[in-house]
């Protein structure tokens, strides 16, 4: 394969040892078995990423320029924002997460993905469900429940599709040929079970047979918080646990800590969520327990942080040469930061100021984007060349992608945290009016931060475009390489 780079050559180079060659063949077989499903899932997720970013930009622009596109009911803020959220959460992030999960599962179990068409079929259904959901939201048919806006006629499609994928992931695990379970497998397996649990519980309690009163808010926050913590976080951490040691060629710093990290996450995370209701009409103990659980999250956060950062320690030089490592380390550092920030936000005295401000938005983007999305980018950069046996076409595009999204998200998160905190302090101060034509008000105070966010959104969109071009190009290269190989074999036959 003429397009292969050194990294691919290493996996393909002929070996003098027959046994090693055989093992490489197993690896190649595993990667090849994932090719179809991963191509489908990653393509879908990148399309949703672009769509979601456009909606995000619209929503951000409307916050400081309310007349913009205000005449189209489909593009009002109340529809564009949930459309953005559902497109990136269920379209981009979940689909990329499923793809990475399946590949990691196969690699770690050392078994090929059997019957890939089942995953393809499930992927079609998943995309169908998200499309119906997003269009319905734009048409004004949202349930109005944050993170669960997709109307009830689209969710069963998502359920069926997810069930197929999760069952297939578990079956792959069942037929593993590797005796030892690596910590990533723990996280992945748990996430495959946790997501249907929280999603179905929230659907039943909020949409199908709604509970009454303030319990709805409690369930909603529990879901919104746990979909991050029990679905995206484990998959992100599983990826970091695999890719940083794998890329560096050195094992995790302290493996026994990683076991502690996993079980403490499993024990404490699902208590979280109620701390967003500090000051609300909720029984005091419910909020207190949530705050305690948030603080107890220090255990998994610190152990995972030690493992990620100390594995990296002494190898920061490699960041220059490895794009995967860049994204992974950025994601790992963001995880530590965002978790510690989140723990601080859960405390009553802090929450009283920062709640109901842009600070919460900044925090969720720090978790969902600076951590999870960056990790997914890194994983896709590692997986695609191995699955397609073709290297990425352009180093420049990867660099543009990395710097645009890295600077973009930093420009998004940190100013908005500052702005949100100032906003909260102004809102708790009765002398500052909410809106005022002359005097400084809450609205005029937050305006510069909201504008910064729009600029950072444009930068992030640029990065996503570079990524999408890169992805399309590598697929094109693979298709061409395949045609070339077919031509060669047919010529040889002649």
């Amino acid at each position, binding site marked *: 394969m003429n397009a292969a780079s050194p990294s691919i050559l290493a996996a393909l180079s002929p070996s003098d040892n027959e046994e090693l060659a055989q093992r490489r063949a197993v690896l190649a077989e595993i990667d090849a078995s994932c090719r179809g499903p991963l191509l489908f899932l990653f393509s879908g997720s990148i399309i949703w990423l672009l769509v979601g970013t456009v909606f995000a930009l619209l929503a951000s622009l409307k916050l400081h320029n309310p007349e913009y596109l205000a005449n189209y009911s489909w593009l009002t803020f109340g529809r564009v924002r949930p459309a953005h959220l559902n497109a990136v959460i269920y379209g981009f992030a979940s689909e990329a997460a499923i793809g990475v999960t399946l590949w990691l599962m196969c690699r770690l179990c050392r078994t090929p993905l059997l019957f890939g068409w089942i995953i393809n079929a499930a992927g079609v259904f998943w995309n169908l469900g998200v499309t119906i959901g997003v269009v319905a939201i734009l048409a004004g048919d949202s349930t109005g429940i944050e993170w669960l806006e997709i109307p009830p006629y689209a969710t069963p499609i998502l359920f069926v599709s997810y069930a197929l994928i999760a069952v297939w992931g578990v079956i792959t695990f069942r037929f593993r040929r590797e005796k030892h379970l690596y910590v990533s497998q723990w996280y992945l397996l748990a996430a495959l079970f946790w997501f249907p649990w929280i999603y179905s519980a929230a659907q039943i309690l909020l949409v199908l047979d709604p509970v009454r009163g303030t319990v709805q808010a409690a369930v909603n926050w529990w879901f919104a918080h746990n979909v991050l913590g029990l679905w995206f976080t484990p998959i992100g951490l599983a990826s970091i646990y695999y890719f940083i040691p794998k890329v560096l060629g*050195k094992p995790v710093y302290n*493996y*026994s800590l990683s076991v502690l990290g996993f079980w403490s996450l499993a024990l404490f995370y699902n208590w979280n969520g109620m701390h967003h209701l500090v000051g609300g009409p909720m*029984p005091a103990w419910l909020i*207190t*327990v949530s705050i*305690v659980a948030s603080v107890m999250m220090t255990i998994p956060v610190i152990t995972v942080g030690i493992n990620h950062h100390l594995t990296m320690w002494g190898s920061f030089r490699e960041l220059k040469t490895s794009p995967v490592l860049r994204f992974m380390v950025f994601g790992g550092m963001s995880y530590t930061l965002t978790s510690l920030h989140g723990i601080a936000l859960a405390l*009553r005295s802090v929450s009283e100021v920062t709640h109901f401000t842009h600070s919460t938005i900044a925090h969720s983007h720090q978790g969902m984007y600076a951590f999870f999305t960056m990790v997914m980018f890194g994983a896709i950069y590692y997986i695609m060349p191995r699955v397609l046996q073709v290297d990425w076409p352009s180093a420049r595009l990867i660099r543009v992608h990395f710097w645009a999204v890295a600077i973009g998200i930093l420009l998004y998160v940190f100013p908005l945290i500052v702005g949100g905190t100032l906003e909260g302090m102004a809102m708790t101060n009765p002398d500052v009016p909410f809106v005022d034509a002359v005097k400084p008000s809450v609205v005029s105070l937050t305006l510069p931060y909201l504008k910064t966010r729009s600029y950072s959104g444009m930068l992030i969109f640029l990065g996503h475009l570079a990524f999408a071009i890169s992805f399309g190009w590598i697929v094109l290269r693979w298709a061409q390489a395949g045609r070339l190989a077919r031509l060669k074999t047919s010529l040889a036959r002649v």
Partner: protein
Amino acid sequence: MNSPTSTPSSSPGNDPRSRGRPAGVKDLAARDPLEHVEPGESQRPISLMLVIFLATLFSWAGYYAHRYGGGYEPLIYNENAYGLAAAKTNAAEKLDPYALGQRVFGNTCARCHQPDGLGLPGQYPPLAGSEWVLAPGPARMIRIVLDAVQGPIPVKGATFDNVMTPWRDTLNDEQIAAVITFVRTQKEWGNTASPVTPEEVAAIRAKTKARSAAGPWTVAELQALPDQEPNP
């Protein structure tokens, strides 16, 4: 098992993956499939720092959950209701009467008498510096707030001909006492009269129960009353 032809003698010291393990031990374990005792990491003692860290966190968690848990009662919304005894009585919190009065004033009185207490000339009489407010005793003012007053009424040299709204059925004793206290002691308006207790309001409310059906008080009726409410 690896092929026995591989070289077990290559120095493990160069290998970062065999950190902290005596040379040679791993290879023995690797060769003997019956070897179950695993020297090395699994027997490494747990870090003291980790133990202290976990112990601190769990102690804090226990303290915080107990201190701010409101006794795990479903109807306790205030995290400072400490301990089960306090939680079960669910006693209403004692509010600062001045702060409560300020809130009641903002919600009910300020619409007419204005947030600055100066009223509107010709329509609503002022409360700041008003001789009706600053009377030595609150007997008249409590009656006015309970059942309102019918103009014309002279205040600070001007006459206002308007009808007030009665608050007997809207505000309770504590709220009326608080708002009268707030108005009478509001230093920014120059008011420095004495505060009023909910008991005083309750006494007058009971005494004037029959009178309330007759509508607002007239100025003549009020002026006939003594400044200080006689003790019953």
